[in-house]
């Protein structure tokens, strides 16, 4: 039986591309939310431009609104494009990244002008627009992300 592809929300947080578990995302909205926690700060990723979208993320406790630089949309990733992360990749919280995914390089990033929100809940109506070739994204473990956001916001 052929394995089904993984579906993820592809976002840019600071200088990193991240794939997030769709079941963890309650809402996606365009525009910067001053009260939102920058995801690049929460995950200690080098910053880039100003945030242009906000995500409401389930944490196991109270949901947390995080800001991301941009949203590419939902991507489907074949199992062959899920690349294992070995222990030679030194992380301070090793469980936070569960794999590296080879994803279609988005040709369009959605931010404040392209994704007036709220755009929806689980099962986002936004599909990433694939460009040329592929690029890598860090696949974030939803449980570990929830724990970290809860710890930072005091919502544990």
């Amino acid at each position, binding site marked *: 039986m052929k394995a089904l592809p993984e579906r993820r929300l592809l976002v840019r947080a600071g200088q990193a591309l991240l794939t997030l578990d769709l079941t963890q995302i309650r809402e996606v909205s365009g525009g910067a939310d001053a009260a939102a926690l920058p995801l690049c700060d929460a995950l200690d990723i080098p910053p880039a431009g100003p945030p242009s979208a906000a995500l409401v993320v389930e944490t196991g406790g109270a949901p947390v609104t995080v800001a991301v630089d941009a949203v590419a949309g939902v991507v489907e990733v074949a199992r062959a494009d899920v690349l294992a992360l070995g222990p030679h990749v030194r992380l301070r919280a090793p469980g936070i990244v569960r794999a590296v995914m080879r994803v279609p390089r988005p040709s369009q990033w959605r931010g404040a002008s392209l994704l007036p929100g709220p755009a929806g809940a689980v099962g986002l109506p936004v599909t990433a627009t694939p460009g040329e070739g592929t*690029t890598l994204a860090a696949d974030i473990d939803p449980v570990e992300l929830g724990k970290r956001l809860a710890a930072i916001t005091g919502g544990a």
Partner: protein
Amino acid sequence: MARRARTAPPAAGQGRTLMFAAAGLPLGVPLEDLLRVTETVEMLPMPMASTALAGVVESLEGVTPIYDLATLSAPSRGPPPRASTAAGLVALFPHAHGSVGIRVDRLAGLSDAPEALGPDLQKNLVAALPAALQPFITGAATSRGQLFFFFSRDAFLSWVGAARDEPTGT
């Protein structure tokens, strides 16, 4: 699996040494210790990365972490510097899980016959290096009048595999 650090630099005539600069230091490594030197176009920075981890790239060996030695040689006071994620040269070493890379500032050629310096002089030169980099250095030599330090692949890979001891910052 941690490997034992080489205790002495390769002797003259034991093979060719690739000379390069990394973290602003002139370094040399036996060609046989290397997989290859390549140019990265883009690197994925990782969440919650160790200070020295610049990011990962996809290589022939799978997901390859790239480390920036410059972060280890920075002064200990103040916040740790971020590893550079800019495109550039990396030297890749074989590892049990694929390969591991370090950022390279520039290549400086090949040496067929490095001339070892006296033991005391080598000791003094190594002692003058940033403390965090000294474990990776096994000696000093010259080639065509240029000083360089022998970089120990085994000591570096042993450091990569060492226990995580950095705070998570929550």
